């Protein structure tokens, strides 16, 4: 595996629960110290290719909306197809981590190992602050993500699975 693990928190601070990835990355950074590189990311997703190309283990945390329980954690590794929205309808702002993964796959620009944690959000309207249910889950989410960064399962999981 190449270099220290890379943890990327994806989100938008001004979209309530969409800030979740940034918040978790911030908390994890304190605990990981120099054992991982932690990067907050709030731009359009082709920038992820620049971040992860040539990296070893890359863990991404992002909010998702699948009408599940707020705060619920989904883990995806290798194949991000389940995260893809309708492929032909993505705008750049709407183009997410999974679309960046597809583009990276076409261009042979993927990290050695890519794990994505999708956390169910509830409120994506403009504004600052996480919804109460999501805020309550921050501690356990951070625990799970720190554990993944420091002690990833020895072999990649072939298919997406709920954590």
């Amino acid at each position, binding site marked *: 595996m190449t270099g220290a693990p890379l943890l990327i928190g994806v989100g*938008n*601070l*001004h979209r309530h629960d969409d800030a979740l990835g940034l918040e978790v990355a911030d908390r994890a950074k304190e605990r990981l110290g120099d054992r991982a590189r932690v990067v907050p*990311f*709030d*731009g*359009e997703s*082709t*920038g992820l*290719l*620049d971040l992860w190309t040539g990296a070893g283990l890359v863990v991404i945390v992002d909010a998702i909306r699948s009408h599940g329980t707020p705060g619920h954690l989904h883990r995806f590794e290798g194949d991000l197809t389940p995260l893809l929205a309708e*492929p*032909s*309808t*993505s*705008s*750049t*702002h*709407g183009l997410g981590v999974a*679309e960046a993964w*597809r*583009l990276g796959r*076409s*261009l042979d620009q993927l990290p050695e190992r890519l794990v994505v944690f999708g956390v169910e959000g509830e409120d994506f*309207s*403009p504004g600052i602050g996480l919804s109460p249910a999501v805020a309550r889950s921050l501690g356990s989410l951070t625990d799970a993500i720190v554990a993944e960064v420091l002690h990833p399962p020895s072999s990649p999981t072939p298919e997406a699975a709920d954590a």
Partner: protein
Amino acid sequence: MSERTIKVDYLARVEGEGSLHVRIHDRTVEEVELRIFEPPRFFEAFLRGRDYAEAPDITARICGICPVAYQMSSCHAIERALGIRVDGTLRDLRRLLYCGEWIESHALHIYLLHAPDFLGYPDAIRLAKDHPDAVKRGLALKKTGNAIMRVLGGREIHPINVRVGGFYRCPSREEVDDLRADVEKALLLAEETVRFVAEFTFPAVEEDYEFVALRHPDEYPLNEGRIESSVGLSIDPAEFDGTFEEVHVAHSNALHSVRKGAGSYLVGPMARYALNHDRLTPRAAKVAREVGLEPVVRNPFRSVLVRAVETVFACEEALRIMDRYRMPERSWVEPPPIDHPTHGAAATEAPRGLLYHAYDLDPQGHIASARIVAPTSQNQKRIEDDVRHLVGRSLDLETPDLTFACERAIRNHDPCISCATHFLTLDLVRE
């Protein structure tokens, strides 16, 4: 009697989310509505009561693609309110930062959003499978733009190093020199991009636009100039409100901008180029001549070519500024204390066009009111006009083909719906 509806619930490959609704009755185009759903004016309300120093960082959050534009327009407007002027190296650094954003934003639109339309792919991901070298060229250009933004702005997304009066910290000569090799390479890639898009097949269409853009005595415009138009308008940005007005339309959360007593107008690369092609840098002018780009482009499909020429300009201008850069003694001009209510307005050229900001400040330096008029809200009515003309010319097309043609007509203008309000979803009714 027949009625036909074209409906696109979620427009693809535009910045943000919105929809288009078109209704055709007896071969007459009755309605064209570009619908934008998100709550409007959130940021203007959010700014009220905040210290003016916070405006550049807060407004940068409006868009992940053009945060520098928001920072620049807010800084210039507030500096006008405070009576300070930023010149010399600090002014050059602002232009350099803006060049980074133009390179990044134009490369993104040309290769990832617009090229699939001309080459017959539904999206950039499938384009990348057959044309990986082209997409990689676009991503390399974009990366260089991001690198400039990172060095000047502190980070590439939502830069945090810009402040009223200048920068929190100016880069060292070495930091700027480290960018040089990448920008030199980007200049070559940008010239290749012009030649690449010049080979596209462009539908033969001409629109009668009123172009509106900044014009500066000596420079291709980025940060300053008078607001001019192709029908002879020439005003100071402070006169924007007296010249243009925003009209609420029921179908959209964005306001429609019109020139008072006239109608829709177009801002953006085609407008800038039409009014400022004589201010292009030498290599940008040379490659524009080489591919036969006319001095005034009225074919909206050829906007991709103008965008590519502007990318060459931005690389050349960046190199010119980097060559003569010496780290200044002070990173910012100290704003004077405020003891009375004041007002300032300014416009700069975002990649998508003129971005106007105006602020009222109270005697404590808090923002009493803010007004932001984004390029896409200015272009919204003009984009509807383009779609109306297109549908009128294309009534015999089957609905799926007509729907796709409408989407292309919208993408020609690289709309950033996110800026216009936030989030766009087509709806074509044939009666």
